[in-house]
């Protein structure tokens, strides 16, 4: 077998799982992946067209819905092209082969004399058939053979190379979102979420709530309360009124500062990676600790969903990352068979991981149950977003590097104390949907085991540095008793771990008097990482010679999850009262870039989001609730703070695609943190790097 079959094909081996004919006898392709605004639908369409030999625009691609498409798990972890796209390529290669065989038989000619491109079958330079004429004879029930040959990489992209995002115009000027769905008789729902999901409702005047303007029904189930109204504005206003009136019994908490709490933990670590003995009898150890607070996913569009019940059957339209997993979780909540539930993906605002999408879906389903036969649309308020949605996990990473006699790092030891990074629907066997805890027949979440190492790990993601540092050990300590909800946020633990590890490399390079990039290159063992850093070195020479007073520069590099995309970032900052990032240059290698500009867009977005996390973002909490009421309480990066961004992609069309969406957050955060340290001479150990954090680091450095 030339290529190993992508994972989803093992479970969905039939051609018909991936492509079939619709009622008009046209091809429709299926992907279990979802379009999150990252450009998936465009990239997958390109892969189909290229493998089959048709032009973009001729392809109808149906993305995740439980009644039609394969279950490919969560669309997460930069795996869509790597697994989902490659599966489609295999299916399409088989489709193409069948079409050519059928054509050859009809023409009584050999396969070698036929070619398929632009949607047409060519023989001796002239068109003999169109694809559509061959489809009746394709056997969609056949299994995709394991020895199906994919197009040779050198033959790829001969008909077209880059296309515009197929959905951009609709997103700019239209109404493609689940928020925008309108159906006849649709009602508008709004939940009344308490600040903490373990709170119990003590009192709320349901009668008075049901008389608020536009309200037609109030739904109460245990501590879950929601309103149904004739307009979205009425629903939101009634829920806000109810929040002001409702009395809750809160769980007791003695934790007043989550970060201090994490730092005070002493229970045993679990060793999650160990490549050799890190104990060294001689030489010098250096260490660095950096912590990251809880941060928000922070979608600009609040979580939303539409639900409808009909004769015990539920249909949900959602922007969830995993429609099948959400279906499983809903089945548990409503204690019904999964077969009674259909979950259909519909666009939402960028989610950046597991946000409130799934929770809003349950809210809609709970409210719709009270008005069987009606469509119910729930759009969360900004309050809900900032209080009810899962957050990115708080964590502390301490790394130690051992300096050997030849001036190289010869052992590396990492200790991580963290909240689990994933509590997606179904994790640990429980629904993990917020209102499932509030309802009378309460379904409490299990402690999350965090993401297993085979999926790149959670808190420990990228704790193993992307260099040869000799033996490496990684120890992890999970903390379950903080009263907040955390779940997957782009790159999980990799962001903080890369900041710490790359900061430590800088510290050691500084001690031995080496240039930071040259010192990194000395520890590279493979050509791809060397190429990347050499290119970054060349770029950095353009900019770091003439830095002004107050400016500093820094770099960060990592290979995501140790085996995915490689990304190196240079940042130049000015440290005044606040930190300003002046320029960022990134060099990346994602193997085959299906859509090079789409890849660059993802990398740039990751960098800018990471700068925002690094310089500005921390969720304020009090007791067991967040205390963020609006964007004013949680500032994120704005247009006038955006650096000059240069994105360089080292294209490797003959290599496997490696994924792109989460490769730049760690390196970008590290580059900024290192640049600040370069400018200041001291290191900030508590993210975000705000003015207060800088002052506190300067003071502790003096002491």
């Amino acid at each position: 077998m030339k290529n190993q079959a992508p994972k989803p094909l093992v479970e969905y081996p039939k051609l018909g799982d991936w492509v079939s004919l619709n009622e008009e006898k046209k091809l429709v392709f299926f992907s279990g992946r979802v379009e999150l605004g990252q450009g998936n639908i465009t990239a997958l369409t390109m892969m189909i067209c290229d493998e089959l030999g048709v032009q973009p625009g001729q392809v109808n691609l149906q993305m995740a819905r439980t009644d039609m498409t394969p279950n490919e798990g969560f669309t997460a972890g930069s795996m869509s092209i790597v697994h989902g796209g490659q599966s489609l390529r295999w299916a399409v290669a088989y489709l193409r082969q069948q079409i050519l065989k059928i054509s050859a038989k009809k023409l009584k000619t050999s396969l070698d004399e036929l070619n398929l491109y632009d949607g047409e079958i060519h023989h001796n330079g002239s068109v003999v058939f169109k694809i559509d004429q061959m489809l009746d004879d394709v056997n969609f029930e056949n299994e995709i053979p394991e020895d199906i040959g994919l197009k040779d990489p050198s033959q790829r992209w001969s008909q077209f190379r880059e296309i515009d995002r197929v959905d951009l115009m609709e997103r700019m000027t239209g109404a493609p979102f689940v928020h925008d769905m309108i159906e006849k008789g649709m009602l508008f729902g709004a939940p009344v979420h308490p600040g903490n999901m373990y709170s119990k409702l003590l009192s709320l005047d349901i009668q008075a709530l049901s008389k608020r303007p536009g309200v037609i029904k109030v739904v109460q189930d245990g501590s879950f309360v929601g309103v149904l109204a004739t307009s979205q504005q009425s629903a939101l206003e009634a829920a806000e009124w109810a929040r002001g009136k409702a009395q809750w019994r809160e769980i007791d908490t003695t934790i007043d500062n989550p970060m201090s709490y994490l730092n005070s933990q002493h229970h045993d670590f679990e060793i999650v990676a160990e490549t050799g003995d890190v104990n060294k009898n001689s030489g010098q150890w250096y260490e660095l600790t950096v912590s990251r607070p809880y941060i928000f996913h922070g979608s600009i569009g609040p979580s939303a969903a539409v639900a409808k019940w009909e004769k015990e059957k539920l249909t949900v339209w959602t922007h969830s990352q995993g429609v099948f997993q959400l279906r499983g979780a809903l089945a548990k909540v409503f204690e019904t068979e999964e077969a009674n539930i259909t979950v259909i993906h519909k666009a939402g605002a960028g989610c950046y991981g597991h946000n409130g999408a799934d929770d809003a879906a349950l809210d809609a389903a709970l409210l719709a149950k009270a008005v069987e036969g009606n469509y119910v649309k729930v759009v969360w308020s900004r309050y809900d977003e900032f209080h009810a949605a899962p957050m990115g996990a708080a964590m502390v990473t301490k790394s130690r590097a051992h300096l050997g006699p030849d001036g190289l790092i010869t052992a590396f030891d990492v200790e991580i104390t963290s909240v689990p990074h994933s509590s997606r629907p179904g994790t640990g066997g429980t629904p993990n949907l917020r209102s499932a805890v509030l309802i009378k027949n309460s379904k409490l979440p299990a402690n999350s085991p965090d993401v297993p190492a085979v999926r790149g790990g959670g808190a420990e993601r990228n704790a193993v540095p992307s260099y040869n540092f000799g033996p490496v050990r990684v120890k992890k300590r999970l903390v379950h008793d903080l009263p907040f909800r955390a779940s997957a946020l782009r790159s999980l633990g990799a962001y903080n771990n890369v900041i710490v590890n790359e900061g430590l490399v800088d510290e050691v390079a500084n001690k031995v008097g080496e240039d930071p990039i040259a010192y990194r290159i000395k520890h590279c063992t493979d050509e791809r990482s060397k190429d990347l850093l050499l290119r970054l070195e060349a770029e950095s020479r353009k900019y770091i010679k003439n830095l002004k007073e107050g400016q500093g520069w820094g770099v960060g590099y990592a290979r995501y999850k140790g085996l995915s995309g490689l990304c190196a970032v240079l940042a130049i900052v000015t440290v005044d009262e606040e930190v300003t990032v002046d320029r960022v240059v990134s060099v990346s290698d994602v193997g085959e870039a299906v859509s090079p500009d789409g890849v660059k867009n993802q990398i740039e977005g990751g960098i800018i989001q990471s700068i925002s996390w690094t310089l500005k973002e921390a969720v304020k909490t009090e007791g067991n609730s967040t205390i963020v009421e609006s964007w004013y309480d949680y500032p994120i990066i704005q247009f006038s703070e955006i650096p000059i961004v240069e994105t360089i992609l080292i294209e490797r069309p003959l290599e496997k695609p490696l994924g792109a969406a989460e490769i730049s957050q760690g390196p970008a955060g590290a580059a900024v943190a290192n640049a600040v340290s370069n400018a200041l001479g001291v290191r900030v150990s508590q993210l975000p790097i705000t003015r207060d954090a800088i002052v506190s680091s300067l003071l502790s450095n003096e002491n």
Partner: protein
Amino acid sequence: MDSDLICTINGADHPIEVSSNESLLFFLRDKAGLRSTRFGCGQGTCGACTVIIDGEAKLSCETIALDVVGKSIETAEILADQSEHPLVKTFQEFQAGQCGYCLPGILMTSKALLDKKQKFSRLEIAQALDANLCRCGAHSRILDAVEKAIKLTDEKGE
């Protein structure tokens, strides 16, 4: 219906049938069926609901629908069929966006700038766009697109 209660939306007269406190945002979305105008925060802090009222970029979530009687409203739908509009061309050229939830608001802030037919520096454009939040990190491309759109408008001498 009181026939005096009319505004102009994207060039066409439109009756305003609303209750007294209905926001322009939900009037546009749910009554006028113009759903490119997005609900982002309802607190006037994110800019997703930005529309143009009599030439100025305004937050529709903070505007009472009845206050736009007699006024001219523009929403992002006005650009939907204008493939030659400088903003449509440059946003496509730079692929300036990812999830796109913030884009209609950004386009309206940008169109209000373009329509002033003045020169704006990149910093001035960025400062105007500080009223709009983007979470995907498409800022750099968006600034490239708006900067070029303003330049194209200037070159056309409009």
